[in-house]
């Protein structure tokens, strides 16, 4: 059997190692079009695991498919920003051109069509991934042209209008993505990538590097805002035969795309930062966990790694010292939850991307049980300038508790969406005016898991002590429907919950159902109480950050836009629930039983229907 040989070869190339399951599955799918149930047993045998384990991994990730896919695969980004930018017209275009709905394949096997949550192109929405190539600022016309050309065998790259700026036109990237850098700040985007920071670090002892960064008071840029050097210290102080370093480039939070820019334009700085951190915690190996949506950057990133190996900035004996450190890239497969650090580690270990119970924290017990540091792309990119220019310089920027600058990913209703590097503590109103946002009604700060705020809060500061954000600023003008925005975020969390805890898996569904009820005009004042109570339960009883934050859009919109809710609520004094419709509940039964209701069809021929009493 041909397939069998291919799979044997793929597994052998990856050492028949179950820890490399993600890579095995990606390669199998790339070569054979899908990971068919029939091949799972073989993969399991070869990697000395069970079939159910393989199936568990395949079924967990959105980008892994068990059914044969079309030769061309279209993922349309369905994020709220895309919906406001013309997603519906694009969806209709695909449906009418190809005659298929999301999740389906054309009969000729040429196309498959799926929807995807935020693919990290919110500043150039609406966007799609077509055969893993990002296509942005998509119009129905362009989409039709791409589809027609694909039919003729012409690749997407041949149809896209023009290549993007900067490294987007690098021979190894060749993408139409635009960087959209609107403001270069002092720390990350100005200055050169010259490995000065690494030289400085290597002139210090690992403990001194930790102190240096501790003094700079750098806090994590991935969301939680934990003091980076403190986390490193925990790992460094945990006795172990080796330690591990991971860069979190999963960037799944809707509305966030700043890591995309850093990976494109600051890859050397990023790897330099990772190398500095590895030196500080004495790690010899690391992983760059790249979200699958950014796979188009992988060849370029690999080339940066090998260039640095050649220059002795990575690998054995870095800069002629006895410090060894190397990095491999781990590709994700479409799961927001894999941005959560323990889920990310599970994924790196070739498992389902499920978070683990903490403690133990990864800094103590992480990848393969080793003390492991996970930091965000932007956090690592801050290290070279801090080392090169000094802790004091870094501390001089920002506010009391938030030092340095922050990359903001600005998108939605404004003239200049894109990347803004601004000092910590900048007022949201200043961001809104520099990006040309007019008539702004609401801003979602921090992505789906963040908060939706209204005009009275626009003077608040973006920093850890006031409005923290991993970077996402989604702007909505007064034309937008607040509840529709909130509803989309709930849909997102329902799709992305790993399903381990009942409060998150089920609670988010109930929250959305109640919101739907209100949006359908059937809401009652008591529904607000229900939403508050259930939100508290989901928050308090979920295991990881997803469930801790998923009620945020509902809670913050109830707090900041009470009138939007109030306008839709009314009392139903009869004691009956407005959401329940007996006629609808009986429709199917009438058809199947071929008779009418004795109780609820009032004109029932006998005229004696009990319904008369109601």
């Amino acid at each position: 059997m041909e397939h069998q040989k291919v799979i044997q070869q793929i597994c052998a190339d990856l050492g028949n190692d179950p820890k490399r399951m993600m890579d095995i599955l990606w390669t199998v799918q790339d070569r054979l079009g899908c990971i068919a149930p029939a091949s799972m047993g073989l993969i399991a045998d070869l990697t000395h695991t069970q079939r159910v384990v393989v199936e568990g991994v395949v079924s967990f990730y959105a980008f892994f498919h068990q059914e044969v896919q079309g030769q061309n695969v279209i993922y349309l980004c369905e994020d709220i920003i895309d919906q406001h930018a013309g997603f519906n017209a694009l969806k209709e275009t695909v449906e009418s051109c190809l005659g298929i709905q999301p999740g389906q394949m054309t009969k000729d096997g040429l196309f498959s069509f799926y929807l995807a949550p935020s693919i990290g192109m919110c500043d150039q929405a609406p966007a799609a991934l077509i055969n893993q190539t990002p296509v942005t600022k998509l119009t129905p016309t362009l989409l039709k042209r791409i589809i027609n050309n694909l039919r003729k065998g012409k690749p997407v790259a041949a149809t896209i209008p023009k290549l993007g700026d900067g490294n987007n036109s690098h021979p190894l990237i060749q993408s139409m993505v635009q960087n959209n850098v609107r403001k270069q700040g002092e720390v990350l985007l100005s200055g050169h990538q010259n490995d000065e920071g690494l030289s400085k670090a290597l002139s210090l002892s690992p403990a001194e590097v930790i102190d240096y960064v501790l003094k700079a008071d750098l806090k994590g840029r991935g969301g939680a805002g934990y003091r980076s050097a403190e986390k490193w210290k925990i790992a460094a102080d945990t006795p172990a035969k080796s330690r591990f370093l991971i860069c979190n480039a999963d960037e799944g939070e809707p509305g966030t795309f700043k890591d995309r820019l850093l990976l494109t334009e600051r890859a050397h700085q990023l790897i330099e930062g990772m190398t500095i951190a590895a030196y500080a915690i004495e790690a010899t190996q690391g992983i760059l966990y790249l979200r699958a949506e950014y796979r188009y950057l992988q060849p370029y990133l690999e080339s940066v790694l090998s260039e640095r190996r050649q220059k002795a900035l990575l690998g054995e004996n870095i800069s002629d010292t006895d410090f060894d450190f190397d990095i491999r890239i781990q590709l994700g497969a479409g799961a927001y939850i894999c941005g959560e650090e323990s889920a990310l580690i599970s994924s790196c270990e070739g498992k389902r991307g499920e978070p683990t119970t903490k403690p133990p924290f990864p800094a103590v017990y992480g990848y393969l049980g080793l003390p492991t540091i996970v930091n965000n792309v932007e956090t690592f990119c801050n290290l070279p300038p801090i080392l090169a220019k000094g802790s004091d310089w870094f501390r001089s920027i920002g506010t009391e508790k938030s030092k340095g600058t922050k990359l903001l990913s600005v998108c939605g209703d404004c003239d200049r969406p894109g990347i803004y590097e601004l000092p910590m503590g900048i007022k949201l109103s200043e961001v809104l005016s520099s990006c040309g946002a007019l008539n702004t009604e609401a801003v979602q700060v921090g992505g789906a898991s963040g908060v939706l705020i209204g005009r009275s809060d626009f003077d608040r500061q973006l920093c850890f002590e006031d409005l923290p954000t991993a970077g996402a600023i989604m702007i909505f003008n007064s034309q937008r429907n607040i509840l529709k925005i909130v509803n989309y975020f709930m849909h997102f969390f329902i799709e992305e919950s790993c399903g381990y805890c009942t409060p998150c898996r089920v609670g988010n569904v109930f929250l959305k159902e109640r919101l739907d009820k209100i949006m359908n005009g059937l809401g009652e004042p008591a529904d607000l109480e229900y939403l508050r109570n259930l939100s508290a339960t989901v928050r308090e009883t979920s295991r990881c950050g997803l469930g801790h934050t998923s009620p945020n859009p509902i809670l913050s919109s109830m707090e900041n836009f009470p009138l939007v809710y109030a306008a839709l609520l009314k009392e139903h004094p009869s004691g009956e629930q407005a959401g329940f419709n007996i006629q609808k509940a009986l429709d199917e039964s009438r058809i199947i039983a071929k008779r009418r209701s004795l109780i609820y069809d009032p004109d029932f021929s006998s005229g004696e229907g009990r319904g008369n009493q109601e």
Partner: protein
Amino acid sequence: MSKRKVRIATTSLAGCFGCHMSLLDIDERIVDLMAIAEFDRSPLNDKKTFTRRCDIGLVEGGCCNEDNVHVLKEFRKNCDVLVAVGQCAIMGGLPVMRNAIMHSEDPLRECLDEAYTTSKVLNPSKQIPNDPALPLILDKVYTCAQVVKIDYQIPGCPPSGDTLWAALTALIKNEEPTLDYALIKFD
């Protein structure tokens, strides 16, 4: 003059009568209960209609057919305080498992087929019961609180006699019922 007796009504909708049996587990306390309360509409005394407005309505089971909905609405209309008793009334219980058939084009038909025609359960005629006297079944099972407003829920499958006693005596005294941990600890 002594105070009038508190009037209680009970019913079993899509339930197994287990909750009612559990109510009988209050044992000899039923004598105390009858000293201060009386049953109106209830299967315990076989009264099929309300004779007058009641203070407390106890509902076992959720709604799987139109008759359940009708009875539940009657209870809401005729009881001051309406209590959902047991998992079936609160969450749907065993009957609600049929709601898991949700990704089908026609979930209700699939459910009936699986129960009566395609399953291995002995049913030589392969007939789906459809006597005109049978109430029509709903597209899915609804919990009591999805159909009418519910004032209290007493958890358990069934709630123990002690639990029911604690809740009921509090309600009779017009107090907010609280259930000790031991009464709602199930494992």
